[in-house]
């Protein structure tokens, strides 16, 4: 059958195409059409020739089927050790078969690949740390997603996410004008409490260029206001770019490699244009992975680094606390049992475990911080990584996967989870929605604002005048 109207191999590059796919609520027609979508086996074969290189080829060939990766995978554990959830099995039965058949696979196999790549692997890379050979299924599933995307076999929400990036350079429909207006609005709304607070746009040569996640201007603008308040308290010389502000790449989760390159170049363009001393990203895991860990390679940067030093939000917070730019009121420290969610993307894959614990040492009264088990680099995925958080058709699989995080949190005895990653924050919220444990979960920003000692000169003057009048 020819390409479907909603489901096809063409990435979304026009508003009309985006509206058409968005209008198919939940992707009903999209998934129906997918059942009949042809596989372009010649294209698949040439993709393998061009991109399936020695590392992954060796990984697939050398896997000894020892099964040690099984227990490393939270989805295997959550699904009562179902053998079809062993990472080795998952990759060999999907990508392995495509490689063996040199691309000659049918529609049913590609739909099977899609189901496994997006509902049975969150690309958390935990298996890679336990495999005796260091084989990383997360990397290979990321690759498989790329093959699936190019053939049109991608979950409906991520086809839309990719299209949003291509049209808006953001994962949601937020234009540069919308973004700047939201920043102005958020600065304006803080004036009563934070007189003089600014969100400077396009300042050249600032100490910090701040980038965020499109969900912030679209759905959670308080996150932008909170970032601004903390910069205000810390006395930072900072700015946001009018273009190139969106740090996330749903294209990564979608397997849209071309879209990944477009997105990272958009942000790097802002860095080159505004020449900040450093760039700072929001409390997001995959945004950091996109711009700092993988982005330099997508953009073809030979040094493997972004154009300027690019910090995760936790690195800036730890530095601000360490240097006294932000001082915590000891009376306001957390005095209830509290645990910490380690984000795969910047803890396991970027080594910031000590940084987040340093932050906790400032925020939590000694004796109240309880580690999850396992923790740090070995922590389990929140259960919502790799895009599965936003994919409706896999909600049931996700709910099952969330049991591992649920049990980890329950074992700490804590009702409060600090989660400096949007994706983990959402997963814990949804975990609470399903399992009703009475949990509370929080980013760092609101905690810091509640606990920080506010310098006198930043306090509203009205208070003093009011006192005088009395």
């Amino acid at each position, binding site marked *: 059958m020819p390409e479907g109207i909603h489901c096809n191999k063409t990435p979304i590059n026009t508003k009309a195409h985006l509206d058409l796919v968005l209008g198919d609520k939940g992707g009903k027609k999209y998934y129906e059409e997918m059942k009949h979508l042809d596989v372009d086996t010649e294209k698949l074969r040439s993709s393998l020739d061009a991109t399936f290189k020695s590392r992954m080829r060796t990984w697939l060939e050398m896997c000894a089927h020892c099964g040690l990766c099984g227990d490393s995978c939270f989805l295997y554990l959550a699904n009562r050790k179902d053998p079809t959830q062993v990472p080795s099995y998952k990759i060999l039965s999907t990508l392995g078969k495509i490689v063996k058949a040199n691309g000659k696979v049918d529609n049913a196999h590609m739909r099977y690949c899609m189901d496994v790549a997006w509902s049975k692997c969150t690309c958390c890379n935990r298996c890679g740390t336990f495999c005796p050979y260091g084989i990383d299924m997360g990397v290979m599933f990321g690759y498989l997603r790329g093959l699936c995307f190019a053939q049109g076999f991608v979950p409906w929400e991520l086809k*839309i996410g990719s299209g949003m990036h291509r049209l808006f350079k953001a994962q949601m429909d937020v234009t540069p004008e919308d973004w700047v207006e*939201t920043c102005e609005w958020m600065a304006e709304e803080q004036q009563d409490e934070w007189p003089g607070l600014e969100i400077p746009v396009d300042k050249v040569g600032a100490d910090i260029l701040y980038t965020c996640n499109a969900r912030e*201007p679209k759905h959670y603008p308080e996150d932008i206001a909170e970032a601004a308040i903390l910069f205000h308290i810390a006395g930072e010389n900072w700015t946001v770019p009018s273009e190139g502000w969106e740090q996330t790449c749903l294209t990564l989760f979608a397997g849209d490699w071309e879209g990944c390159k477009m997105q990272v170049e958009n942000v790097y363009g802002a860095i080159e244009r505004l020449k900040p001393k450093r760039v700072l990203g929001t409390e997001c895991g995959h945004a950091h992975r996109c711009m700092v860990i993988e982005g330099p390679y997508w953009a073809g940067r030979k040094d493997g680094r972004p154009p300027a030093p690019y910090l995760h939000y936790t690195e800036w917070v730890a530095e601000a606390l360490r240097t006294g730019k932000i001082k915590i009121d000891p009376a306001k420290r957390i005095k209830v049992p509290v645990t910490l969610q380690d984000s795969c993307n910047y803890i396991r894959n970027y080594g910031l475990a000590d940084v987040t614990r340093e932050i906790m040492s400032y925020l939590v009264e000694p004796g109240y911080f309880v580690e999850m088990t396992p923790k740090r680099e070995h922590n389990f995925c929140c259960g919502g990584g790799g895009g599965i958080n936003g994919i409706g058709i896999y909600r049931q699989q996700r709910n099952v996967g969330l049991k591992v995080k649920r049990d980890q949190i329950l074992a700490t005895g804590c009702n409060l989870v600090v989660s400096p990653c949007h994706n983990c924050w959402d997963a814990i919220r949804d975990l609470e929605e399903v399992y009703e444990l009475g949990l509370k979960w929080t980013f760092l920003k609101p905690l810091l604002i509640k606990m920080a000692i506010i310098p006198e000169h930043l306090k509203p003057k009205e208070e003093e005048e009011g006192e005088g009048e009395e």
Partner: protein
Amino acid sequence: MANVEFKGKTFTVDEDGFLENLDQWNTEWVEYVKDSEGIAELNDEHWKVINMLQDYYKKNGIAPMVRILSKVTGFKLKHIYELFPSGPGKGACKMAGLAKPTGCV
């Protein structure tokens, strides 16, 4: 997909508990959702938000940015959260019968 029954009305919802179809939306749906969204009683301001979200969605096929919601209703962000404690992105959209927003939300 599942069916939800409330006060004699049946609603079809998606995997995340959002209405499958805006045509099914009615005041019973709002009543059904309000408890889980932590809202005790609905007032005119809740309805102003709900009506705005629906108007925008019917016109654009997508939920509005919070900035647009604030501009049209005249409500500050803080007040929108007072009205809808679970937030304008999820709670208010769900109550208004909109589709679950796509992306990281």
